[in-house]
């Protein structure tokens, strides 16, 4: 067993265990922190697969931005932690379903001959980042632009959703005031109409 294998098993078991912990834990803050742990470990895994650019992005963007955002929201909302799972039935069901899923997909992996698509692994001299950049800005330039646009939309959408349009304060609107007439405010009723 070489060192890489040891590292792999170590990292993988940390990820699996913490993800199990993540789904059963009650405290949202803990969950978020567990997620950070998972992402860090995943970045290690990715590094082992020579995807250093993505590993760095994962840590920087995901852990640095998205998960911090999660934490912000958690703090902001001030959620009371309640007991999560109430019925054992649900637990049973979910475990059952994911087990079947696992078995099915495992059968795919097991029976499928992945060796045929494997090629000799060559390591680019200019590094992984260069390769990604090259194909991103040549073949996928349009998709790249779209992604940028999606991010823009996401920003605007997030703002739009939470932009509070409700008027809470008592303000005067002179324009409306001027347009009001006597008849619209006051109605004089005669005796018989009452």
């Amino acid at each position: 067993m070489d060192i890489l294998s040891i590292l792999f098993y170590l990292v993988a078991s940390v990820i699996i265990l913490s993800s199990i912990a993540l789904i059963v834990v009650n405290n949202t803050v803990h969950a978020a922190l567990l997620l950070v742990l998972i992402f860090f470990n995943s970045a290690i895994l990715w590094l082992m697969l020579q995807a250093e650019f993505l590993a760095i992005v994962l840590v920087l963007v995901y852990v640095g931005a998205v998960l911090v955002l999660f934490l912000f929201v958690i703090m902001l909302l001030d959620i009371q932690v309640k007991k999560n799972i109430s019925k054992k039935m649900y637990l049973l069901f979910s475990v059952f379903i994911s087990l079947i899923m696992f078995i099915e997909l495992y059968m795919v992996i097991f029976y499928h001959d992945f060796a045929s698509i494997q090629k000799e692994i060559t390591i680019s001299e200019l590094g992984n980042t260069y390769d990604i950049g090259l194909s991103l800005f040549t073949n996928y330039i349009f998709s790249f632009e779209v992604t940028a646009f999606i991010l823009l939309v996401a920003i605007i959408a997030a703002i739009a959703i939470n932009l509070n349009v409700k008027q809470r304060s008592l303000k005067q609107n002179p324009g409306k005031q001027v347009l009001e007439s006597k008849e619209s405010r006051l109605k004089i009723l005669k005796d018989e109409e009452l």
Partner: protein
Amino acid sequence: MELLLLFIPLLLLTSSLIVGLSSNNLGKISAGILSSTLVFVALIFSSIILFNIYKHEDQILYENFYNWISISSLEIGIGYLIDKFSAVMLFVVLLISFVVHVYSISYMSEEKDFKRFFSYIALFTFSMILLVMSNNLIQLFIGWEGVGLVSYLLIGFFYKKESAIKANLKAFLINRIGDMFFILGIAMIYALFDSFDYRTIFININKVDFENLDSYFGLSYLDLSCLFLFIGAMAKSAQIPLHVWLPDSMEGPTPISALIHAATMVTAGIFMVGRLSPLFELTDFTNSFILIIGSSTALFMGLIAIYENDIKRVIAYSTISQLGYMVAALGISAYTVSFFHLFTHAFFKALLFLCAGSIIMSLHHNQDITKMGGLRSKLPVTYICFLIGTLSIIGFPLTSGFFSKDLILEVMLDNNSTISFVSYNMLLIGALVTVIYSLRLLFIVFHGDFRGGKLSSIKEQSMIILLPLILLAIFSLFSGYLIKTFVDMPIYFYGLKDIHYEGMLPFISHGILSPASIALITGFFAAKILYKDERKFKMLNSAITIKLKSFIQTKYKFDELFIYSSNKTKKISSLLASKFDIGLIDGFIVNGLPKKINKLSQILKSLSSGYLYHYAFLFVFSIVVIFGIILARIL
């Protein structure tokens, strides 16, 4: 001549339309006189035609003056075929119609709907003439339905009377049962000859290969078609069991009972069979059927008349019975003999009805004979006329009924078959019954004491009423002497059955000595003892006779049968409507399907609970299942 024939129906149609649609400017009396005049003119035309037909031997007038429908090979025209047979019928119809027209001017003078009445009878005469002079089956059917329609309208003339409007519906419906079969018969004849035209049919009759035709229900093609035609005639001519409408039809005004329900319309069936005699001649089963129906009608309907108390109904039952005689004669192919009886019967039965009308008028619309009696002195002219009518109907020697009825009996006896022998005996008993009920009526109404209050207020009617009676009385007395004409009369070109007739005197002497005379004498004494002297016999109170009497008084439950079947039809109808149409088709399928879909969607609705994890579960679960299926198929 052709023009005259065209004019006869047109005159009547004009009369009907003018009187019916005219405004109030045309007064009652002038309307009556106008239409009577038009009928009279038509009558004169028809006499000219009759005269001409008899002058030229073997002349047949045939023409189509209007093409009603012509689609490729199918041609239906309106025209005429006048031979001796139809010329005589034409004359009879117009004569009775004229008499009734005149009579009605006085009889209906107090009615509000006087003009409507005249319009109807003119329309009736028109339809009847269309029927009589028709040269094809469709025209016959048109006239046939037309007279049925007018009969319907006239029975319901007093439309506020519940019994009248019931009776007219009944009459029309029963006639329609006959019509249904009649039109089927016509369709069968058409399918055979590819024509409705009498002439074509009669010419081709020998060319048809009857052996190779389809047979239905074990009857040959021709048998069945003639049977259907005859069922039509049964309804129109009130034969058992389709006779039930005729007694009820007496709800109509009396003149139309005379015209329609005694003299003309009800004899249309007889006329039709006579007209189509070349066809009926070839049938076997149907002829026997006709014979049985006719003779049983003659006997059993006569029996009912003995126990009736309504003067018009007595005469109505006697009409049915006499029609039975005619039909029975048709059954042994003695068409002209039957027609002879039709001829004489038209006069004396119309006479009896009109006399009854006169009596009813004098007694202020009382029709119950138990409230009459001793009217002889007060209504002398009516009495004499009624007497002549009665003598005729019972076949008193030398009156017209004597000739015609005796001829039927003679012919029946001559026909060598078992059925006709049985029929002969039935008709003979029928003759006895006829004597009894006719004389009963005469004795109860005109003899004895008046039972309806004061006799003094009763007066004889005006001359307008009496003249028609006298005219008809003359015809009733003397029309029988035309026997020779009828015996020799060909229908179309077919001289039919050989009728044993050796001349007037031998016939009379033979007739007087025949069993019919015994029936006459027996009947006379029976009626005299029972109804004139009103003697009581212990025998009449015995259990059997009372049972017999009550059995006859039920009228053999035919009315109940029809009421039952019409109620049953209504019940089935409403059952079908509610259970099948609304219940099954509408409820189960049309409205039920959307309801089922709605229910299904309610069930499906609960699947979308709104909870995120339910959706996710469904989603994943489906993926798992689909994935599993794919895997199973791959591995």
